C-alpha cells in the first residue's frame, strides 16, 4: 500500500501530494484489535505508547451511534459508565471480525446471532447489512465506516499528543486477513485521512520488537552476537489467532512460517454463551429491547466468568434474562475447556502446522516462545503452546498486550527513514506471504503460483495451455487461498481477466505464461502472456496483460459462480505437461 494507490480516494491523493513537505514525519503504529486498540510512536529514542485523556494505553474498540451531536463517538474519547452501555444495540464493535467478509461467511453468521446490534445475512455472497439502534430505530452503517470513525478519533488523539498533523501509519493486521480485507481497511484509513505506509501481520511486528531486544541484549554482552535465535510467536486476541516461526540474528528477523485463523476470545465467549443458554440464537432473534438487554447481561456475565476461570478453578454464574428465565450455575475449568475443545484443537494445529512448514526440525530448536495477546493468559492455551514446544517458560521480555503496536511503531520509524545514533533502529523483519495465490485451472482446481511462506518481495511464474482445440481466449481467475485447513479449502476470489488473441491451434499447444509479483509494498500484480512454441519468435503474440489485484469489489462472492454459469469451461486453462514424456 504505497503511494501507488493514492489516486483512488481524494483524501489519499492529498496525502501523496504533501508527502514531500512532511519528509520528517514519523509514521505512527496502530494496532486495531477486535476488542482493544492502541497507538505508539518512535519518540526519537524509544517507542512510546500514546495515552488518551483518561490515561489509557489500551482503548476499547467500539463506536456508539446516537442522535444528538457530536455523533457518533468511539471508544477513544467516550467514557462508558458501564459495560452494558456498549451492549445496548447503539454501539457497533467486533468490526475486525466483520470487515471485508461476505454474508455467506460462517464468522458473520455467528456474529449475527450473538452480537446485540443488527447484522442481516442473506447468504448470497454479498456484503452483510449492519445497523445500530438509535432512538428505537435501526440505522444502517458499514464496517468500513465504523472503523473510519474510530480511526478519526485515534488520529485526533495522536495529533493532540504529538502536536503535529498525522498522516502516515503502520497498521498491524492478523495473518489470516485476506487481501480483500486489507483493501477494506485501507479504505477506512483513507476515509479517516490516514495513509497506510505498511500493513504488518501482527507476528511480523512482534518479530521486529524481538529483533530489537535481542540486538540490545547482545550489545551489552558482546558474546555470541552473531548466533541465530529461533522464536515461535503465538498471538491470540479476541478476534484472531496467529502463529509464526522466526529466525533472528543481528537485528534481522526472517519469518520462516506464518499461519493464522479467525479464532479468538470471541469464539470462547460465544461457545460459552451457547452452553449457558442453548437456545440463545432463536430466543434473541427478534432483537427487541428486552432481547438486547438480556444479550448484554449474558455477554457481560460470561466474559467475567471466563476471565475468572484463568485464575480460579470454578466460577458461579447467576443472571436474570427476563421473562422468568434465570441462569444459575457453576462452571469449572474442566467444563470450560470441554466447551471450547475445538478452539483449543485449532490453536494446537496452527502451531504444529507452522512448526512443520518452517522446517525447524525439532521443537527443541526453538529458543524462545513468545506469547502475545489477551487470550494467552488462559492457562489451557499457554499449556498447549508450551507443550508442543516442549518448554516450561515463555519469553518474558515483552508486554503481551503492547508487543504488536510497539513493533508497528518501530516499523513506522524504519519506513520513515529515521536513523538512531545508538543503532536501536538497525532492524529489519523479512516478511513472507501468509496465503497462497493462484488461478483456477485443470478443471475446477486451484493451482497455486505463489505459495504461502514465500519470502517477499516475490515473483513466480507458471505455464498453462488451452483446454480446447482452437481456443482463442482464456480466462484467468485469481484466487487467494484461505488457510483454514480443517474446513474445506476456502478460496477467495481476487479478480479475473481474459487473455485474448491466442492463435488457433490444437489444445495443449499455445503456452500461456501466468506471472505473479508481490512487490515490497505488498502490491500484487498478475501478468499473463501467450507464446506459440515453434513459431520462431521469442516474443509474445499479443501484448501482455498486467492487472493489479484485488480487482473484485463488494459482492465478489457472487462473481465466481456467475463466471462459471455464463462461461462454463469454454475459456479454461490446464497446467502444461511435459511434452517430452507425453
Amino acid at each position, binding site marked *: 500500500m504505497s503511494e501507488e494507490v493514492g489516486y483512488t480516494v481524494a483524501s489519499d491523493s492529498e496525502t501523496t501530494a504533501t508527502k514531500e513537505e512532511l519528509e520528517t514525519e514519523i509514521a505512527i503504529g496502530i494496532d486495531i484489535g477486535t476488542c482493544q486498540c492502541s497507538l505508539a510512536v518512535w519518540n526519537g529514542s524509544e517507542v512510546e505508547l500514546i495515552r488518551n485523556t483518561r490515561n489509557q494505553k489500551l482503548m476499547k474498540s467500539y463506536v456508539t451511534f446516537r442522535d444528538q451531536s457530536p455523533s457518533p463517538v468511539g471508544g477513544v474519547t467516550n467514557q462508558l459508565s458501564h459495560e452494558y452501555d456498549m451492549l445496548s444495540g447503539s454501539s457497533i464493535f467486533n468490526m475486525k471480525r466483520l470487515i471485508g467478509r461476505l454474508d455467506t461467511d460462517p464468522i458473520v453468521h455467528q456474529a449475527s446471532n450473538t452480537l446485540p446490534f443488527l447484522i442481516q445475512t442473506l447468504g448470497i455472497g454479498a456484503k452483510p447489512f449492519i445497523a445500530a439502534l438509535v432512538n428505537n430505530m435501526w440505522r444502517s452503517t458499514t464496517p468500513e465506516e465504523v472503523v473510519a470513525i474510530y480511526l478519526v478519533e485515534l488520529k485526533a488523539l495522536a495529533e493532540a499528543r504529538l502536536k503535529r498533523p498525522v498522516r502516515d501509519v503502520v497498521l498491524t493486521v492478523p495473518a489470516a486477513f485476506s487481501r480483500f480485507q486489507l483493501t477494506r481497511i485501507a479504505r477506512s484509513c483513507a476515509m479517516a485521512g490516514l495513509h497506510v505506509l505498511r500493513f504488518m501481520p501482527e507476528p511480523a511486528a512482534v518479530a521486529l520488537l524481538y529483533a530489537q531486544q535481542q540486538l540490545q541484549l547482545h550489545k551489552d554482552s558482546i558474546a555470541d552476537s552473531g548466533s541465530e535465535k529461533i522464536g515461535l510467536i503465538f498471538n491470540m486476541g479476541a478476534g484472531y489467532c496467529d502463529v509464526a516461526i522466526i529466525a533472528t540474528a*543481528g537485528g534481522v528477523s*526472517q519469518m520462516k512460517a506464518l499461519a493464522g485463523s479467525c479464532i479468538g476470545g470471541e469464539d470462547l465467549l460465544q461457545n460459552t454463551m451457547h452452553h449457558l443458554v442453548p437456545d440463545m440464537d432463536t430466543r434473541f432473534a427478534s432483537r427487541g429491547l428486552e432481547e438486547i438487554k438480556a444479550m448484554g447481561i449474558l455477554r457481560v456475565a460470561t466474559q467475567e466468568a471466563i476471565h475468572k476461570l484463568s485464575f480460579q478453578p470454578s466460577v458461579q454464574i447467576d443472571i436474570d434474562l427476563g421473562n422468568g428465565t434465570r441462569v444459575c450455575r457453576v462452571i469449572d475449568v474442566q467444563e470450560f475447556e470441554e466447551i471450547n475443545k475445538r478452539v483449543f484443537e485449532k490453536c494446537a494445529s496452527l502451531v504444529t502446522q507452522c512448526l512443520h512448514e518452517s522446517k525447524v526440525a525439532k521443537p527443541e530448536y526453538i529458543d524462545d516462545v513468545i506469547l502475545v495477546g489477551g487470550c494467552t493468559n488462559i492457562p489451557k492455551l499457554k499449556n498447549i503452546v508450551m507443550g508442543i514446544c516442549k518448554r516450561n517458560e515463555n519469553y518474558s521480555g515483552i508486554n503481551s498486550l503492547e508487543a504488536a503496536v510497539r513493533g508497528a511503531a518501530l516499523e513506522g520509524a524504519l519506513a*520513515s527513514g529515521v536513523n538512531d545514533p545508538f543503532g536501536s533502529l538497525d532492524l529489519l523483519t523479512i516478511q513472507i506471504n501468509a496465503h497462497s495465490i493462484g488461478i483456477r485451472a485443470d478443471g475446477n482446481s486451484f493451482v497455486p503460483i505463489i505459495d504461502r511462506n514465500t519470502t517477499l518481495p516475490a515473483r*513466480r511464474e507458471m*505455464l498453462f495451455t488451452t483446454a480446447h482445440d482452437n481456443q482463442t481466449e482464456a480466462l484467468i481467475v485469481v484466487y487467494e487461498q484461505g488457510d483454514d485447513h480443517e474446513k474445506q479449502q476456502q478460496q477467495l476470489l481476487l479478480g479475473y481477466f481474459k487473455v485474448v488473441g491466442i492463435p488457433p491451434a490444437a489444445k495443449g499447444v499455445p503456452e500461456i505464461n501466468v506471472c505473479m509479483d508481490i512487490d515490497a509494498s505488498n502490491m500484487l500484480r498478475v501478468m499473463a502472456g501467450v507464446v506459440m512454441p515453434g513459431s520462431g519468435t*521469442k516474443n509474445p503474440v499479443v501484448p501482455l496483460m498486467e492487472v493489479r489485484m484485488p480487482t473484485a469489489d463488494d459482492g465478489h462472492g457472487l462473481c465466481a459462480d456467475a463466471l462459471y454459469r455464463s462461461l462454463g469451461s469454454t475459456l479454461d486453462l490446464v497446467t502444461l505437461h511435459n511434452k*517430452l514424456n507425453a
Partner: protein
Amino acid sequence: MWKTLIKPPISTLTRRTLTHSISLQLLEQNIIQSQNQPHFSTLYTFTTTERPTISKTPKIHFIRSSEFLGNTSGFCSVEETSCCWNCKTQKRFLICESCGCVQPVDHSVDYFRIFGLERKFDIEDGSLEGIYKNWQKKLHPDLVHTRSKEEREYAAEQSARVIDAYTTLRKPLLRAIYLMRLEGVEVDEEQTVSEPELLGEIMEVREAVEEATDSQALKNIQSQMEEKLRHWSNSFANAFGSKSYDEAIKSIQRMTYYHRVNEEIVKKL
C-alpha cells in the same frame, strides 16, 4: 512504478527475472509446492514425476530472452562503467562501498560472489544466513523507503536477487544445477535417464513409501534417501571439481530422484 507500465511489455515481465533461467524458479517452486501443499497432492502428483523442471529447450522463450535483453531493456540500464551512479567512485558492488547507495543489478555478479564464496559445490553450513541478513539490512526495500525512486527500484531488484541467491545456494540440488549453468551446461535430468536399474530402484522405493503404514517405516526410508543424497552430492562435488560434467549431470539426476522421494515421505509424515 508507472515507469514499468509504459515500458515495452518485455521489460515488465523481465524486471526481476535474473540471469538464471526461469526453469530454475520453476524447480524451486515445485519443491516448495510439493512440500507446502499437501492438500493439493492429487493435483501435483504428476508434477513431481512428469513435469520437466529443468529443460534444455526452455518453454518461455520470451522470458528466457531476458538474459540477453537484461542490459538493454532500458529498465536495468546498467552502464558498463563500474562507477557508482551517485558518487562516481569505482568501489561498487551491490551497494557502493563509499557512499552506501544501492546499485543497479549487475548480472555478471553471480550468486557465489554475492555471498563471498568460491564457485564450488561444498559450502560451509550456516555461513549463508548471516551474510544474507547483512545484505538485506543494506538492500531491503523496507529500509530505503525515503531514498529516490530509482534507488528504491534498484533495492527491490537487488533484494529479490539476494533472496533468489540465498534459496538457490542453500539447497544442494539447486546449487548443483546453478553451478552447472554457470559453466554453461543446462541440466535436463528427465530426458536422459534410461538406466533400468535406477528406474527400478526408484519404483521400488516409491512403492515402499506408498505402502508404509507407520511413521517409523517412513523415517527408515527417509534416512536411506538422505544417505543416498549425501552420497550423490559428494559424487557431484568430485565430478564438478574435476570438470567431468557428464558424471556431474548423472549425479544431479539421481539427487533429483531421491529428493522427490524424500518430498513424498515428508508429505506423508
